[in-house]
């Protein structure tokens, strides 16, 4: 133990004896580890954020999209009669709620403020399916659906854009396609990505939407249907029931493929998880290459060091150092070099992900990079291994020197 401590002390003395060179040597490792940590933390943050916004769609939900997956061209539109069929509790006991959805990019304005955003037309059940909570006012109800009332529920970000405030807007009027609508509710902030921000969206009765906003080529057609299963265990059964019902209502023969696609939220979450996982691996793989290059830098400098210190190696051998002693001495040095680089790199990666987090927060992207403990440990371990791996050859070279020749070296 004392012996090891002395070897480490000596290696540190050698590393700090030539600070500039040591710093330049570890720079590659610093950048390598820094970018791996940065990428992994951003990847973890992105995963959290995406999974969060998928969960915000609602729990135990199943989407029905028109068309077979990948073959949208000859899709048969989904209609309100599909929704009615799916709502039959006798035929679909595992389905809790169903809502048709019509989506439209529309222009919405209030006074001088005008913008284009996504409005959803749905049933009143959609609030429960999707877990929409209201900060103020209320969601539209069956009466609003039946009477096609010109009422909208808007997200807090949208309220901010239109009225310059996030609350106290219920009862105000907005204009959509130049027709007046009354704001009856504002949703609670959910957060989301720039491309899918529920806080910037609005909701209205589907009947209102169909009558006043969307021009339909097929009567009563809907963009998609959202189904909520009784609970997570009944999702597969609910999917089975929905498939049966839709095949019948679309009059598909046994040989025909589905002309619709059923996707449950869990699948989407899994796919998104896989995608972000692949992205993370890809990004950190690229970052890992810089770690490799850093390791080669260490090998390069260690080879120079070994050559420079040939006569020292000769002396140590003359004084009784065995091959293993010399080997350990140089491996300790390269291992410590890259360990120091790794520690600096963790700092750099941390700073990097902190900056990215700040930048994301400033530009409204809800991405919070997560530096995980295991990532830090892994990076430390890996960088040390890189040092040992790339230090092996120079150390071997030093250990195998013939003492007579090494001593003769100038």
């Amino acid at each position, binding site marked *: 133990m*004392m012996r090891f401590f002395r070897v480490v002390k000596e290696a540190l003395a050698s590393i700090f004896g030539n600070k500039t060179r040591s710093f330049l040597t570890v720079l590659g490792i610093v950048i390598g580890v820094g970018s791996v940590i940065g990428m992994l933390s951003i990847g973890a943050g992105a995963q959290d954020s995406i999974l969060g916004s998928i969960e915000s769609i609602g729990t135990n939900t199943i989407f029905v999209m028109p068309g077979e997956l990948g073959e949208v061209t000859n899709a048969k539109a989904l209609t309100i009669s599909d929704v009615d069929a799916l709502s039959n509790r006798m035929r679909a006991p595992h389905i809790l709620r169903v809502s048709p959805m019509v989506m439209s990019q529309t222009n919405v304005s209030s006074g001088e403020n005008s913008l284009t955003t996504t409005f959803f037309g749905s049933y009143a059940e959609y609030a429960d399916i999707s877990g929409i909570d209201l900060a103020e006012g209320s969601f539209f109800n069956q009466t609003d659906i039946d009477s096609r009332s010109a009422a909208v529920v808007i997200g807090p970000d949208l309220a901010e854009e239109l009225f310059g405030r996030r609350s106290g807007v219920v009862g105000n009027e907005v204009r959509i396609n130049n027709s007046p609508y009354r704001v009856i509710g504002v949703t609670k902030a959910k957060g989301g990505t720039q491309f899918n921000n529920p806080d910037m969206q609005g909701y209205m009765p589907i009947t209102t939407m169909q009558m006043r906003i969307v021009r339909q080529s097929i009567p009563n057609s809907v963009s998609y249907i959202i189904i909520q299963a009784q609970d997570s265990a009944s999702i597969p059964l609910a999917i089975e029931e929905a498939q049966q019902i839709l095949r019948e209502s679309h009059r598909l023969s046994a040989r025909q493929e589905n002309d619709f696609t059923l996707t449950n939220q869990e699948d989407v979450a899994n796919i998104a998880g896989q995608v972000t996982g692949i992205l993370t691996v890809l990004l950190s793989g690229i970052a890992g290459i810089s770690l490799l290059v850093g390791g080669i830098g260490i090998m390069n400098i260690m080879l120079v060091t070994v050559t420079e210190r040939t006569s020292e190696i000769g002396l140590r051998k003359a*004084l009784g150092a065995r091959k293993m002693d010399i080997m350990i001495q140089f491996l300790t040095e390269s291992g410590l070099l890259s360990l120091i680089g790794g520690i600096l790199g963790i700092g750099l990666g941390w700073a990097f992900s902190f900056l990215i987090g700040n930048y994301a927060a400033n530009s409204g992207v809800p991405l919070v990079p997560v530096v995980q403990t295991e990532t830090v440990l892994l990076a430390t371990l890996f960088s040390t291994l890189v040092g040992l791996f790339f230090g092996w050859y120079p150390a071997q070279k030093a250990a195998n020197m013939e003492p*007579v020749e090494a001593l003769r070296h100038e």
Partner: protein
Amino acid sequence: MENPVIQIRNMTKVFHLGGGNDVHALRGVSLDIYPGEMVAIMGPSGSGKSTLMNMIGCLDSPTSGEYHLDGLQVSSLVDDELAMARNQKIGFIFQKYNLLPRANAIENVELPMRYSENTDDMTGRAKEMLKLVGLEERMNHKPNELSGGQQQRVAVARALVNHPAIILADEPTGNLDSVAGQEVMDLLLKLNREKGTTIVIVTHDPGVASQAQRIIRLFDGKIVEGGLE
């Protein structure tokens, strides 16, 4: 009479330079050196004296022949055993002192102990040796803060610290002026006289060699004076 501490019989060393060029550096050398002796090995360059020194110092293995060092049959040892033999049996002194530039005098003297079994109180033992060579005032100095003569005395202390069977000095005064050189020689003579340390000096300087009790002269890979038959 005591057994010789160094016993070499019919030692040869051939260097294969490639292309069929063989250099016969040693052509059958036999010699005995007894405990407490101070012996000088002389010879012109190319005579094989450096090769002989490397053999005595266990730095290299002979092509043929026998070498016993303090009861150890050196010719049969492998690398790590040779390292151990160097560590325990031999104290090296080099022409250029070969001190570690970043380490102070104590740490330099500690170096051979680090590669030995006994690592107790290395600092204390190093200090003791530095006192013996008269450097107690400069123990914390680094080599570049010491004169050439002082550096060579640090090297002498380093050579003594593991209590080796012999001190093997390679041109110990070669880099020193005559005064500093004589100081180092006086130190070696004193060690030999007072402590009975066996000392082998390889030199081409007749002034140095003349202070030894015996001179072994080499020429063309053979001993021409001071060896056995």
